[in-house]
């Protein structure tokens, strides 16, 4: 989630409230304060509020929230003659472009800092790393209208930002740092989006890089902003930017977009209208607020609101990209009212508590193992084939037995375990420096063929650990869980984890449900173990109905 740096002098000046009060109330607007310094604060805002990714946006919200200037703020757009023609050739690649012009703005360090921050955060959030939306900001005086937005071939060339020589599209994508970084978005395309002015010079190659010639400097007073992409995400971004410059005192002028089959004029900063039913508010909040309280809460959150008989007519500012549903507005009522002013009430919903059989059997097995003198451990279920099978002299097949991860992060974690025993051997290996004997167990999940199973496993290590010791444990365990069982010698070829003649399968009703024995020295060697180990593993899911798994 984006972390925004807000400088106190700017914020205090723009909000008109001293920092102590801002600091106290800001979290109740919905954010995490990451760091408080003498000059600035770092604040993490949620991904649903891109309008708060600039000091202008935060100040605007706080002026409402702190009762300095509650209610809807009017944003006006002046119609003007700026025009962009969209060519057929670009529709396949990146079909939407919109824009606006900002007049009479003093471009100083403050604005540049704020603009760079919000541009980056919008690219990341709404833009999904520029894939869905990308912004270009230009010095209007260097841009010659009308503009053409078209799909060019890879030999098209211009001077990209931060360079002083002409480069082709192909060169930019392979050499320019931004080209290299974002080339993935245009991979496989034979046409490339380009905004070209009436002097036939490129001003921007979205979503990669602007042209050097329209660079914004401290001498810039008027801006042209383009936003390209696919859908309404471009409008969300442009509205946020236009509102921000309007708040800075700029005049917003519209741009006409001429598509082959239609025309549109952007930005549209008129508020959207939503209707919120009163009953819906009471129901969702569980709180019967008065009309007046609700209106006040809406206005604190900078909405325009009109009270009707059963509902509220709410004007939602154009910069609020997150409002999809009336419930989004009801949340804002709660925030505007103040979460800290809502008295919590325990619900009367009356139900009877019920445990799940899985955990009942798990607890039963844990209790028995504890009684047999074993210490409980917990281990990861993520593991790898080497530890699970190769080390254990065992074999298994992907999907049939174990689940392989498609994109593992490390060699240690490539599959989900089907057996707990290897995990316990790893634990012993890591704990060789602790006094012997060591007796540990785990009752937990394994995943066999995509489904969870409940298994118990235990190991004992000390200098005289032997078969009869672990057989005693298995005998006791099986007796406690109430099963008649037989031991059947494991053939070395079938389960190489145990010493031949000292390993056995646990057979219940002619079905194998587990195994135990003296761990084969080959296995011990691989786990770097130097004292004898005996172990057991029993599949509880094979013995009990462990209940419905979702």
């Amino acid at each position, binding site marked *: 989630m984006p972390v925004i740096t807000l400088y106190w002098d700017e914020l205090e000046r723009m909000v008109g409230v001293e920092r102590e009060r801002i600091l106290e109330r800001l979290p109740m607007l919905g954010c995490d304060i990451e760091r408080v310094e003498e000059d600035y604060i770092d604040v993490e805002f949620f991904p649903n509020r891109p309008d708060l990714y600039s000091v202008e946006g935060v100040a605007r919200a706080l002026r409402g929230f702190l009762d300095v200037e509650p209610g809807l703020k009017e944003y006006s757009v002046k119609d003007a003659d700026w025009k962009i023609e969209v060519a057929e050739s670009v529709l396949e690649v990146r079909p939407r472009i919109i824009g606006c012009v900002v007049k009479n703005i003093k471009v100083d360090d403050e604005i540049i800092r704020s603009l760079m921050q919000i541009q980056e955060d919008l690219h990341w959030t709404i833009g999904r790393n520029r894939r869905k939306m990308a912004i270009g900001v230009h010095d209007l005086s260097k841009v010659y209208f009308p503009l053409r937005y078209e799909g060019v071939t890879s030999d098209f060339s211009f001077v990209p930002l931060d360079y002083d020589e002409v480069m082709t599209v192909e060169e930019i994508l392979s050499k320019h740092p931004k080209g290299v970084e974002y080339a993935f978005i245009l991979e496989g395309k034979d046409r490339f989006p380009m905004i070209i002015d009436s002097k036939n010079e490129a001003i921007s190659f979205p979503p990669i890089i602007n042209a050097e010639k329209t660079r914004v400097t401290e001498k810039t007073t008027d801006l042209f902003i383009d936003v390209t992409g696919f859908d309404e995400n471009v409008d969300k971004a442009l509205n946020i930017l236009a509102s921000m410059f309007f708040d800075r005192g700029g005049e917003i002028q519209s741009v006409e977009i001429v598509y082959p089959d239609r025309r549109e004029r952007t930005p549209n900063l008129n508020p959207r209208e939503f209707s919120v039913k009163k009953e819906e508010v009471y129901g969702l909040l569980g709180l019967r607020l008065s009309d007046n309280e609700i209106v006040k809460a809406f206005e604190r959150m900078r909405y325009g609101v009109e009270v009707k008989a059963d509902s509220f007519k709410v004007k939602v500012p154009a910069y609020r990209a997150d409002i999809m549903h009336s419930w989004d507005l009801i949340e804002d009522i709660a925030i505007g009212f103040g979460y800290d002013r809502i008295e919590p009430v325990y619900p009367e919903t009356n139900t009877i508590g019920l445990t799940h059989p899985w955990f009942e059997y798990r607890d039963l097995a844990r209790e028995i193992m504890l009684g047999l003198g074993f210490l409980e451990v917990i281990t990861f279920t*993520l593991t790898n084939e080497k530890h699970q099978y190769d080390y254990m002299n065992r074999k298994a097949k992907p999907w049939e037995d174990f689940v392989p991860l498609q994109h593992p992060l490390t060699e240690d974690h490539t599959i989900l375990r089907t057996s707990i025993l290897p995990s316990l051997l790893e634990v012993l290996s890591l704990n060789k420096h602790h006094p012997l004997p060591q007796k540990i167990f785990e009752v937990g999940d394994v995943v066999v063929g995509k489904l969870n199973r409940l298994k118990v496993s235990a190991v004992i290590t000390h200098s005289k650990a032997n078969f009869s010791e672990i057989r005693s444990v298995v005998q006791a365990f099986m007796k406690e869980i109430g099963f008649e069982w037989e031991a059947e010698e494991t053939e070395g070829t079938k389960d190489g984890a145990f010493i031949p003649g000292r390993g056995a399968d646990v057979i219940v009703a002619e079905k194998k449900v587990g195994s135990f024995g003296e761990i084969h020295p080959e296995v011990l060697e691989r786990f770097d173990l130097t004292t004898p180990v005996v172990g057991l593993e029993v599949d509880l899911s094979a013995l009990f109905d462990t209940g419905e798994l979702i």
Partner: protein
Amino acid sequence: MMLSPIEVTLVKSLEVGVEYPLAQAAKLSGMSKDAVLKAAHLLQEKGFAEVISKTEREYFLTEEGDDYLERGLPEQRLYELLKKGEDEVDDLKNKLGREFGIALGWLRKKGIVEVEGKLIKLKKEAEFEERIILRKIKESSEVPETKLKELLKRKLVSFNERKDIFVKIIKKPETELKEVIKDLTQELLISGEWKGREFLRYDVKIPSKVIYTAKFHPYERIVRECRKIFLEMGFTEIKGNFVQSSFWNFDALFQPQDHPARDMQDTFYLDEYMELEENYVRKVRETHLNGWVTGSTGWGGSWSLDTAKKLVLRTHTTAITIHHLANNPEPPVKAFCIDRVYRRESIDATHLPEFDQLEGVVLDKDVGFRHLLGLLREFFLKMGFEDVRFRPGYFPYTEPSVEPEVYVEGLGWIELGGAGVFRKEVTEPLGIKGKVLAWGLGMGRLAMLRLGMKDLRKLYQPDIGWLREIPAIRK
């Protein structure tokens, strides 16, 4: 009188009144020197024996002493020269060299000579027994202490000290020697022989050998505590498979298909697909695209069935709770789940690729956000957090959303999980009738607070030493 077996043995082995060197006493009693000493001390406390410690000096000649033994003491040599009539100081000085001063000093001190000008006058006869004593010492013969004093002072003789221990039985116990009982055996009990006898008294203050408790993992005790709270509050426990479809993990929760959380960077996917219930799929798809009948605008764009079918290691237990609610859409439902989830993250002190999550949901008709806050307050109160406060939060599938914080002494306000009311875009396509209050938290955070841990890895990478040391009691 209570005598231990070793005391009895010792008393029986030695004569009264004889001082036995330790080694001899050990030989006679057939016990080790340590055991004899222990028994002798015990007997001494009771007045039957004496442990005598003697310090013996072993004298030997220093280098100088050796030299004088061979050549005679300087004063003796001077005396002999004087006897021969030599009395000139300068001549004698030449003959005795550096030792002249020592020699003259001693003769004058003993009143044997006087110095008159440049002449030394012999005043009386003298005897020099020092040389004899030196010889005796050299031969390790007995020499009276008094005679050694001067030689020790002159550093002609030195000594080593040797400590010898002797055991002497002063008297034998009057009553018949009867052993006290050390080990209470089956034979003693059956025969009744223990009657009338005393038991060996132990020193109860001596710590015994360390043994380790077989016990549950400390983290499991926290899980147990949470389960107990949910069950007390009337919740049903649910359990689901680790492998889920993306549909239940993401789509059913209104997470757009291009949401960053669904990136393969953050989520473990499996290269397999799962068939989905057609009825749910259609409605969820519509809701994503245009809001369906939920009153939402939806996310727009496109929605792919294959993306929804793709298998994933569940990234949260909400994949389970939402499916449970879809299976049980009629209110009231109260369910909880404490179980493993997976994130594609590198391991460090606060991040693990798998960890446990706790989650609770309440489905009912007449419940709202305020009741969610009530649930949270009650839950945290039962967990022992008395101060709870609420801040706005954001989760893609809840509206309103809230981040509860609890006050922890010494740490301040700590964010503990997240909560909210499931969006209509989540509940309506699945036919869930009513509002769903939901909250969850990472168990690791709780474990860190409870067990005072700084490193989450400790939970799943067991250190047997730590597990043995950490007490079972909740601190």
